[in-house]
């Protein structure tokens, strides 16, 4: 689960990390009130669960309360990469001397956390990683030891060295007291590690990490992703999530993995890979899926029925493809679920349902469906046939 910047910064502050004074606001007037309390100038920043807000104009520095009110109003009306801005964060502006990039992130390759530091922050850090990989410090953290102090010091030393030769801003300011700044940066590394570890994060990113003209260190941004599987350990964080799509929420409660897409072919399958593969084959044949729905392993008839109901409750579904390879999931359970939902859902009338059942219980399931004699259900032999027929139905 991705946290909003101000939520992440609250975790940072609780871990003793230096963040600018600030508070979120939901209206232009509330933003102006926060700015008045903090003192001007302030930064007004879009709170949205994705990157790229800077390029979208979601961050403005304001010198008057009127500017704050106007900027907040405009930003609150924005969307970034399709996501609505949930609030603005109004923060005291920080005088930037150097910008760096610092993160603790789960590394699949290391099977554990990695501290990542780059002496040049901002949005171009990915380019830097590609063009000058040696400029990026990567320190793997041993899961059984945690972050060692020497590792934090290594990163801090790299940060101070980078600041001394920094190209942002154009004329680098020498650090007043490099040793003091290094200690502050090492403390930030420790603090980020604590947030990462203690709060079950998979990403804790500060970009930019700012060194001010007088050698102070400030976390100017905060991107925090919490491991969904560990939210039970953090009820306070679990409460911070966005309102999900109601269909997705109902599905999750029933153990289904359900994502709304924008096509017109409903898809039900078991196993994320099989469903993805079904979508790929639909797309290759020119079809567009209305959803991704994985009923999971050992799905009950009720779960399958819910899946069908959810698909039919959406707009404009012209056909449904059911692709089941029975393992733990049994074909007869799937068949029962389909029958139940098709009989009780008015919207089912007239929507053709193509069903491919293979593996465990396939014969039993096919027999059940055949016995029921539902007019809009058609059993198919393989995925190729399923895809061909469902795309043809869509086109009809």
């Amino acid at each position, binding site marked *: 689960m991705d946290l909003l910047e101000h939520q992440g910064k609250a975790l940072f502050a609780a871990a003793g990390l230096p963040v600018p004074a600030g508070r979120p606001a939901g209206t232009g007037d509330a933003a102006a009130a926060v700015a008045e309390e903090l003192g001007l100038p302030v930064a007004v920043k879009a709170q949205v669960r994705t990157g790229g807000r800077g390029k979208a104009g979601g961050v403005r520095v304001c010198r008057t309360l009127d500017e704050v009110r106007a900027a907040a109003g405009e930003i609150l009306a924005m969307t970034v990469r399709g996501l609505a801005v949930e609030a603005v964060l109004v923060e005291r502006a920080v005088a930037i001397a150097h910008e760096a990039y610092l993160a603790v992130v789960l590394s699949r390759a290391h099977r554990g956390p990695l501290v*990542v530091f780059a002496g040049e922050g901002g949005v171009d850090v990915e380019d830097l990683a590609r063009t000058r990989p040696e400029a990026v410090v990567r320190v793997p953290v041993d899961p059984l030891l945690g972050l060692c102090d020497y590792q934090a010091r290594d990163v801090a030393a790299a940060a101070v060295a980078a600041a001394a030769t920094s190209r942002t801003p154009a004329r680098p300011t020498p650090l007043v007291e490099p040793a003091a700044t290094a200690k502050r940066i090492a403390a930030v590394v420790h603090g980020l590690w604590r947030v990462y570890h203690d709060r079950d994060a998979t990403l804790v990113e500060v970009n930019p990490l700012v060194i001010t003209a007088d050698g102070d260190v400030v976390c100017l941004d905060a991107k925090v992703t919490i491991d969904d599987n560990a939210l039970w350990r953090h009820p306070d964080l679990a409460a911070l999530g966005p309102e999900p799509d109601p269909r997705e929420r109902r599905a999750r409660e029933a153990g289904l993995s359900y994502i709304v897409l924008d096509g017109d072919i409903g898809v039900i399958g078991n196993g994320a890979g*099989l469903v993805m593969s079904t979508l*790929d084959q639909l797309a290759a044949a020119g079809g567009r899926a209305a959803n991704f729905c994985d009923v999971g392993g050992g799905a009950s008839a009720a779960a399958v029925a819910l899946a069908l109901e959810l698909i039919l409750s959406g707009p404009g579904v012209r056909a449904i493809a059911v692709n089941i390879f029975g*393992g733990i999931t049994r074909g007869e359970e799937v068949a029962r679920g389909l029958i139940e939902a098709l009989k009780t859902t008015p919207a089912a009338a007239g929507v053709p349902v193509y069903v491919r059942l293979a593996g465990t219980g396939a014969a039993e399931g096919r027999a059940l469906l055949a016995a029921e004699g539902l007019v809009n259900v058609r059993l198919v032999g393989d995925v190729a046939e399923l895809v061909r027929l469902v795309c043809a139905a869509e086109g009809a």
Partner: protein
Amino acid sequence: MAVVVDAASRVLVQGITGREGAFHTRRMLAAGTNVVAGTSPGKGGQTVEGVPVFDTVATAVAATGVDTAVVFVPARFARDALLEAADGGLKTAVCITEGIPVRDMTEAAAHLARRCTTLIGPNCPGIVTPGACSAGIMPAEVFCAGDVGVVSRSGTLTYEIVAGLTAVGIGQSTCIGMGGDPVHGIGFVECLELFAGDPQTAAVVLVGEIGGDDEERAAARIRDGFAKPVVAYLAGFSAPPGRRMGHAGAIVTGASGTASAKKAALEEAGVAVAASPAEVADLVRAALRQE
């Protein structure tokens, strides 16, 4: 021969008295697996499908000489179950459980590594050496013994592809479902090493999907020299690009994680990438003919 598990493997089911544990114990036994013990704290002395239940792994090891654990315990207890398996001296732990917190898995994986316990999973369907051992939840009936090694990030898709191989008479040496979690045990690279050293394996099938960089690392391993033909299938070409929070992922892996990028990396390494699950069998047959 085969890799990781074979007819001599002695299987322990951790969480055997649970619904899933008991159900799959029956299926593993039906597939001819030596399931010789189960554990369930406080249930020692019972039996499940005729298999004796012990309170602890240590007592199960002492009484039955198990060497391969299959873990079905709920996610909150999985870390502990894996540590117990490793400390019990088991050679292999197959973790079926899904939803395990990443932090728990990083710790468990690190501990298993120093105990030299091979980890498969978590959130995986297990491992099958057809006709010899099924440790996990894969439907044994779709497999048949042969000379193609299969390793996959996806469960059901694997059954689909294996069924396609079996249908045209291409058997499998060992099929490994490595699981889809970000922190997992053996992956494509380790499995390629295992299959490289297995005389029974003549070709390898990799089943990948979007996200992470396992496929890219497998491609690099194959490019460095791999003596057996490799066929791949990838799922997720039509997935909408994920919304990324930060830059760390891209910086760390240097990989975009898209199916197209993975396909390109594998093809550059000489791997034949199938357009559909059904095509895998054709490509494998072609590759084996060329040998």
